[in-house]
């Protein structure tokens, strides 16, 4: 009945295709042991080893990047270009976040090895999630992504005796809010998954896809479609929290403001990557056939996602206009960007009508995520450089005259702001261009118009930062206490990423053109 695994059976199961994620998990466990035995004056090796682990996983991922869809673990984990591409995004995010963390932890006196281990565990969860092809793995991966993040956002809690320090309290509060809303939302996600399982009798996304057709056809159980719809809706509520889509966004500004800045940078990207990966897979692989009248109607969930995307775009961009704290402004901006990626998800809904739209839209969403990752990480790196040890220095006015004191940082921030707006020759433009054209191809003209208009509005608050930095020359500019060598490397890496994605377009499109989910 059951044989103990030999090397041969391991090869039969083809587990090598999950190697990038497995390698990172293994490296993390290794680091956990190493960190305990490192003497106190050698603790600076922990982040270096963490970077090495991420690097090894990155290399393995590049070597195993393959366009063919191979699956393992009984079809639960799929390695295709989609997985490979998002693995790259996750690993870059983790790498830059570790770079940002080293000196930040030291100067805020929260330097503990467990920080890096939790960060890597969260990245591991994200990597398992992007390859997940099964509701169970999606759920477990999401929890592995989230639970370390709850702790990390409260990480500035215990290590101070100064109980009046506001930033410590903010960090605690942020961890608690994030935890409660995160746990609440994953309960919704999993209730939705249970209903999908009840309707189809399986948790595998491909088998769900196969089961959707017969359920819709059989008249005796015609109302089974209802079960699928409500299951999809509840899953959408759960994932909507993770990607910070309106109306499930209310935790975002508080948590982003309160969490330690490197963690804010990390979770603004990683949580979105995980959430959108699950959403794309669920909607394309699992439920793209869920339409009321095949060949005539788009997928039944398309309307809902369109409305959510539109509301997210409008609310995110308009509220961002009135923010005075840069971390809160970037939080609302990240809500708005979730709206743009949701446009790509909505475009997938026309899969039954427009040929090949599912792949085009998924590719657009992936490029957008990569562009967003570089840009947002870079922007948070600059914010971190300006942040004082007590958590102040993140108001918009702190950027006044930055060009005088730190011209390089000011130029970098300007580039990131242009990229977030979507100015040509930056990564943000590529992402927006692809997403908008996918939406137009899918026939979602009103949504595209909202997307373009809100992009124009977003220019106001992004450009305001640039104006503060360059034109308010009578100010001395921030001393940028956090601008140390690793932070500078992180800024340069992000700048390079933004420019490469924006200018060397074929490089990215060649990678992403291999992505095919259907």
């Amino acid at each position: 009945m059951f044989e103990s695994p030999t090397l041969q059976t391991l090869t039969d199961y083809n587990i090598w295709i999950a190697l990038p994620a497995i390698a990172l998990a293994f490296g993390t466990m290794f680091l956990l042991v190493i960190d305990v035995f490192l003497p106190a004056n050698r603790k600076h090796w922990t982040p270096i080893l963490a970077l090495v682990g991420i690097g090894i996983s990155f290399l393995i991922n590049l070597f195993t990047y393959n366009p063919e869809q191979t699956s393992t673990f009984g079809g639960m984990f799929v390695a295709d270009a989609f997985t490979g591409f998002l693995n790259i995004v996750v690993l870059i995010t983790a790498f830059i976040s570790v770079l940002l963390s080293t000196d930040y932890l030291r100067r805020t006196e929260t330097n503990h090895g467990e920080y890096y281990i939790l960060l890597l565990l969260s990245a591991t969860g994200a990597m398992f999630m992007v390859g997940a092809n099964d509701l169970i793995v999606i759920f477990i991966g999401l929890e592995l992504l989230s639970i370390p993040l709850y702790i990390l956002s409260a990480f500035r809690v215990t290590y101070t005796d100064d109980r009046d320090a506001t930033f410590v309290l903010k960090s605690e509060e942020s961890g608690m809010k994030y935890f409660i809303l995160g746990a609440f939302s994953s309960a919704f996600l999993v209730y939705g998954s249970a209903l999908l399982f009840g309707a189809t009798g399986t948790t595998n996304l491909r088998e769900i896809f196969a089961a959707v057709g017969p359920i819709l056809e059989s008249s005796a159980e015609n109302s089974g479609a209802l079960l699928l719809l409500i299951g999809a809706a509840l899953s959408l509520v759960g994932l909507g929290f993770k990607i910070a889509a309106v109306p499930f966004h209310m935790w975002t500004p508080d948590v982003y403001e309160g969490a330690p800045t490197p963690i804010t940078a990390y979770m603004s990207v990683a949580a979105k990557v995980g959430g959108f990966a699950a959403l794309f897979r669920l909607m394309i692989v699992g439920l793209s056939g869920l339409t009321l009248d095949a060949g005539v109607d788009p997928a039944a969930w398309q309307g809902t996602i369109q409305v959510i995307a539109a509301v997210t775009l409008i609310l995110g961009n308009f509220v961002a206009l009135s923010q005075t704290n840069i971390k809160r402004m970037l939080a609302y901006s990240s809500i708005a960007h979730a709206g743009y990626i949701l446009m790509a998800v909505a475009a997938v809904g026309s899969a039954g009508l427009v040929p090949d739209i599912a792949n085009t839209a998924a590719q657009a969403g992936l490029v957008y995520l990569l562009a967003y990752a570089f840009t947002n990480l870079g922007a948070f790196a600059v914010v971190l450089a300006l942040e004082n040890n007590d958590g102040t220095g993140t108001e918009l006015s702190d950027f006044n005259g930055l060009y005088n004191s730190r011209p390089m940082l000011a130029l970098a921030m300007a580039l990131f702001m242009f990229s977030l707006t979507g100015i040509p020759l930056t990564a943000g433009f590529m992402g927006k261009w692809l997403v908008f054209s996918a939406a137009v191809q899918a026939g979602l003209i009103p949504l595209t118009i909202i997307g373009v208009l809100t992009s124009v509005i977003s220019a106001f608050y992004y450009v305001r930062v640039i104006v503060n930095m360059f034109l308010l020359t009578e100010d001395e500019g921030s001393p940028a206490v956090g601008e140390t060598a690793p932070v500078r490397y992180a800024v340069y890496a992000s700048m390079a990423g933004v420019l490469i994605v924006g200018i060397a377009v074929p490089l990215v499109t060649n990678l992403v053109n291999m992505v095919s989910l259907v």
Partner: protein
Amino acid sequence: MIQFDFSTIAFFVFAVLTLGGALGVVTNRNLFRGTIWLMVSLFGVAGLYVLLSAPFLAAVQVLVYIGAIAILFTFAVMLTRSLTRLNVRYTRLWPSALGAVLLFAMLVIGVIWPVFGGNELYNQPISDVVRTTTDLGVALVSGEGYVLPFEVASILLTGAMIGAIVIARDADEEEMEQ
């Protein structure tokens, strides 16, 4: 119609325990009593597992949920004991109640009843073939089964353990000196 045999009566008993306990949890002003109600509710759920031919899950429910999680709640309530008795029982009472009732109505009237209510197919399990605990165990570790989520779950538990310790411990001596 439904005959009132043993399993039906048992179902009603456990359903009442589950829902009654749950109502006790959300209405009780005293948090310590709330945890006792939570145990009652969790016990009712364990009973439902037995009726559904999942004795292993019922045992795990008693051991993990009642034996560990509910006890953890008890500890938490004791450690925060000045708050055990809440001054404000609810905020947003009516909107939340309305939301919960709407959700329930949507689930039952909108989905469960039309799909399963009138459908004879779902009145009985198709057969008495039930998987044993051995099947579950093999499935959890076999390569064609659920070994991936099993391993990821073990990493998850490690992470949660590290995290809980990191966040809850006091500043240790070395930091005190600083």
